């Protein structure tokens, strides 16, 4: 009998955590109580920034984190955060298929075994006024929290502005920031209608949360338990993608119910965003070298 502690970054109400709780139940059931996973949600055991290393160093056998947090380590981890490279669930699924081996291999070198990954709903714009002409983005103070969002803001002509996640409501209401890009889930759960008015459904990219297990801990399991874990992971991946799809429409409706004005990007804005996506993809390919280019190639040829 084994007890595994599993740190995760997001709150219980978030569908990723719900999916993980179900996954833990599935594992417990399939192993006849042999493998008992305790989920420590909302950074309660280790903070988001520490979870990968905690699993890698064997402090905990299993954990979840946002894959693109590792972008500074290897460009492959930034692939799912390039705007408009894969901006629908179907594309995101194909991109994950094309990149899964590369991601698994890099994480494998760190002693981590990838169990599954589930995307967030597409990243969309939250503003305090409507924008149809991309030129109106010029000079707007735009929340940037990593290299990719900073670059996106620059290419939009906006002013990249750093705002810590917990500071977002205050920053909007005091005017320190005027625009941000995040998923409808995050927006609805943060009750974005308290501090923004317009939601433009760009669905620019679908960043993934990934669940990894320490390879040594994984291999120490009995064959049956390991098979049960993998089967539960596969089910969690399928279920998670479905939850994410359902979540998109549901949370956009919640934003609307909260009083936000929901719209599709204007043609001009959509065209500009596509252009920016192409630029950022090209820039990514330049940093990722031939390996990265091959992944993108495989994705495009599917």
């Amino acid at each position, binding site marked *: 009998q084994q007890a595994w*502690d599993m740190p995760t970054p997001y*709150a*219980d*109400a*978030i569908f990723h955590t719900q999916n993980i709780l179900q996954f833990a139940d599935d594992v417990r059931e399939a192993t006849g109580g042999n493998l008992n996973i*305790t989920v*420590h*949600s*909302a*950074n*309660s*055991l*280790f*903070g988001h*920034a*520490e979870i990968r*290393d*905690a699993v890698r*160093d*064997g*402090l*905990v056998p299993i954990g979840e984190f946002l894959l693109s947090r590792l972008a500074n380590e290897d460009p492959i981890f930034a692939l799912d955060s390039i705007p408009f490279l894969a901006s629908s669930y179907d594309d995101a699924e194909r991109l994950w298929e094309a990149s899964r081996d590369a991601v698994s291999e890099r994480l494998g070198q760190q002693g981590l075994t990838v169990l599954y990954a589930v995307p967030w709903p597409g990243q969309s714009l939250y503003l305090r006024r409507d924008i149809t002409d991309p030129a109106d983005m010029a000079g707007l103070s735009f929340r940037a929290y990593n290299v990719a969002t900073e670059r996106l803001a620059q290419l939009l002509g906006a002013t990249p502005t750093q*705002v*810590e*996640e*917990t*500071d977002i*409501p*205050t*920053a909007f*209401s*005091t*005017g*320190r920031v005027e625009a941000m890009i995040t998923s409808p889930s995050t927006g609805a*759960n*943060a*009750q974005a*209608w*308290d*501090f923004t008015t317009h939601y433009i459904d760009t669905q620019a990219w679908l960043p993934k949360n990934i669940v990894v297990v320490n390879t040594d801990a994984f291999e120490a399991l009995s064959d049956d338990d390991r098979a049960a874990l993998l089967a539960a992971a596969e089910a969690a991946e399928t279920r998670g993608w479905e939850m994410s799809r359902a979540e998109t429409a549901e949370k956009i409706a919640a934003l609307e119910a*909260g*009083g936000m004005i929901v719209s599709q990007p204007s043609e001009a804005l959509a065209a500009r965003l596509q252009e920016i996506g192409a630029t950022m993809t090209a820039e990514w390919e330049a940093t990722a070298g031939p390996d990265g280019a091959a992944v993108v190639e495989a994705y495009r040829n599917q």
Partner: protein
Amino acid sequence: MDITLLSALLVVVLFGLLLSGLWVGFALLAVGMVAMELASSAPMGAVFARRVWGAMTGWDLTALPMFIWMGEILFRSRLSSDMFAGMAPFTRRLPGGLLHVNVFGCALFACVSGSSAATTATVGRMSLPELRARGYDPAMAIGTLAGAGTFGFLIPPSLILIVYGAATEQSIARLFLAGVGPGILLAVLFSGYVMIWSRLNRHRMPEPEPAPTWRERLRALGLLAPTILLIIGVIGSIYAGLASPTEAAVIGVAGALAIASLTGGMTRANFVASLTGAAMTSCMIAFILAGASFLTVAMGFTGIPRTLAAWIGAQDLSQFTLLAVLLVFFIVIGCFLDGISIVVLTTSVILPMVMAAGIDPIWFGIFLVLVVEMSQITPPVGFNLFVIQSISGRNIFEVAWYALPFFLLLVLAAAIMTLFPEIALWLPGTMMNS
């Protein structure tokens, strides 16, 4: 190991180590190590390093040394004594006199600072020496400070509400608004208590100040002005969109330095003394925070808070009984864990039962903050106690004894808020109905 036995053992070890005079940070670390050794197979050293690295390098924490530094500058440049001299003529007729400065000073400062430790340290650095010099009863001076220092968490901005909001997916903006009403309620309760106490204990109050002339009143206003301007400037910098609440601490430092230099109170020696003083006070708090963060992760591995909370959930209690039981539960674990740890370790288990009982999660967040405030002033582990020990030299048990009336007032506030939930919910409901 049985969880009851383990809990009892940890409590004994903690008390033993603290009473034998081991530094608080080390005592928390050692208890965490005992817990990890008995209840987990995870490598202890690596867990310590990983968790402490994560906990000690957070952006929100950086406001702490800045606020403490600001307090040191105000204290050493005599700006704070000017402020008290300026306030004295105006509080002459108020029962309790300058004791109210602790209550209102903390309430005002809490509008800027998100943490109770920073609020207590900054206000206390100025007020305790002044109140002492003016002959106020030390027990009451320390008690009011310990109690009112906890406003840091209740009056927005608040670190605890941010942590709670993030863990429960509640709107931080709404939680902040919900804290305002109970903050005012508590300030009224504390001030009311000070008035009644001072009427009943006239012999323990200093001689009233002589009646001021109009000229003295004007001079007093002049003495008050710089500090008032500074506080307005710091609060204003947040609402003008110039600074985040964390960054506002640095506005406070810069403003205090500027005013102190202009009024000639800032010598080179004063500057160095304020900086080293702030450095060491911050280090003292940080070291305890490091021990507490390791104890938190150890508690997470042992599962003690979770199991206890789940046990309460299994009792299937009615709304009021549930709240009463939770209050007791939080007060007890609040003696041994710091506020943020309590929220982090228990919300996941407690929120579902609270929701199932039909309790509003925003309201519960404020209830939780009141409970966390209580934990700040209950021994042996309470950050306001630590801060005040370092300012006043009185040991934490003594400080906790002086703070006891204010602890009881916090319990009273929780009861009033349970009977009248609108105290918390009216403001967010009114201001955010969109």
